[in-house]
């Protein structure tokens, strides 16, 4: 794709849709978001683990929610973001959108996995077992499988164009299904397990806890943006390896050395 030279760049929303333009922009943004992620995570962890008071019912064990809740939110949000970029890809036929969706998926899968893992850790003191077929845990598990399916599909198709479009179709099918899955699992759960302890119970949260949770969520956002941008940069280099600008880019460090 050739760089568009016409018109001031802020007038053209497609200016950065070209991988050639986006690559350096992403490179400049990554350190910014990475720093923000580290700072926010440090503040959030400090507030959550050192300052926030212990919970009356659950003692110190509850503190894992500072990891569990942000990762769960991100896992769901990233899937929606993936679906958004997929729609953009199918409508506008911009390759960068599909790359964004594919770059988001591993982070989303990681977040879903962390959510399940911390959920199990939290479940042990709360429910006495590592795993309960709680509505949220179950639908998170299915979401995790949706991520794995997306990653497996896009990785196993060799032609990039088809991988992009196939992944987009799958992400859109998935995003229709996520609410249905969540709703159906919840329905199933209330039918089968009326007596299980609900997570909202006794959640009169202290304001420090709330702030710590928000800080951690923002840190997760920043982390997700950082990893996605760096993955997009890798994808761009792989896909555009034959173009002149990538070859020039790769030639510069070689000349300096």
């Amino acid at each position: 794709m050739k760089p568009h030279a016409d018109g001031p760049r802020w007038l053209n929303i497609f200016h950065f849709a070209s991988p050639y333009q986006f690559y350096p922009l992403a490179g400049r943004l990554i350190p910014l978001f990475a720093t923000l992620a580290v700072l926010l995570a440090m503040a959030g962890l400090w507030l959550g683990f050192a300052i926030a008071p212990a919970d009356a019912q659950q003692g110190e064990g509850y503190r894992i929610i500072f990891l569990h809740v942000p990762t769960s939110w991100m896992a769901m949000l990233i899937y929606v973001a993936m679906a958004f970029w997929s729609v953009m890809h199918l409508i506008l036929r911009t390759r960068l959108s599909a790359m964004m969706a594919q770059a988001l998926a591993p982070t989303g899968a990681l977040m879903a996995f962390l959510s399940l893992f911390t959920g199990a850790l939290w479940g042990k003191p709360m429910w006495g077992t590592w795993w309960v077929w709680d509505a949220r845990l179950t639908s998170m598990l299915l979401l995790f499988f949706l991520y794995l399916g997306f990653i497996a599909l896009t990785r196993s198709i060799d032609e990039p164009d088809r991988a992009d479009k196939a992944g987009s179709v799958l992400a859109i099918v998935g995003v229709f299904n996520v609410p249905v899955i969540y709703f159906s699992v919840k329905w199933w759960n209330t039918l089968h397990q009326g007596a299980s302890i609900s997570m909202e119970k006794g959640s009169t949260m202290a304001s420090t806890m709330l702030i710590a949770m928000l800080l951690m969520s923002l840190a997760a956002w920043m982390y997700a943006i950082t990893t996605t941008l760096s993955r997009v940069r890798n994808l761009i280099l792989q896909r555009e390896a034959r173009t002149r600008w990538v070859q020039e880019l790769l030639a510069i460090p070689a000349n300096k050395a």
Partner: protein
Amino acid sequence: MSSWAFFCTVIRRDLFLAWQQRGDLLVGLVFFVLVACLFPLAIGPEAKLLSRIGPGVLWVAAILANLLALPRLFQADWQDGTLEQLLLAPAPAGMMVAGKIVAHWLTTGVPLTLIAPLLGVQYGLSSDLLLMLMATLFIGTPVLSALGSIGAALTLGVRQGDMLLALLVLPLYAPVLIFGSGAVAAVAGGLNGYAELSLLAAIACGSLFLAPWLAAMAIKLAVE
């Protein structure tokens, strides 16, 4: 050619082809029966337990049997090139996929629905439970074929396509499984189960409406 005529032609063609290879259809049915027979062997012959897990087991077995038959939807046509000719018919590709979904349902979902009561009897399900089981399978299996068609189209000609197909499709089947076996469980619990059944019907309407177009999109990618 009108879309409707094309739709009917595709159904007739696929049914004719399925009839030419009717042994394959039987394999799917035998698989369904076998899976259903394995559970009592694993769990034990206690009648009360069996009648409790029966609807769930039969639904899972139906889903697996459907999954086994999914590659048949497009694979053969894709390999011998007839899929290109189907796409080149002067009618929308979505209608072609819709026809194939219906034919697939008639050759997998309907036989499963018809044979399920026999297996239900083995699990000691009462007659009203059997009736509800048949009703849920009748409404739920078209959803399996419809959602499955998207997965089958996406994995056409992909490395390890059949394994991938299972990974893509099984999470999507979860709601169908929940409402399908849930309706039967509701009847067993003394309710009428209409709520689950109508939710299942809603899912069926939604997926039968949307799936053909998405699957058609995915098929075009495989043929390009």
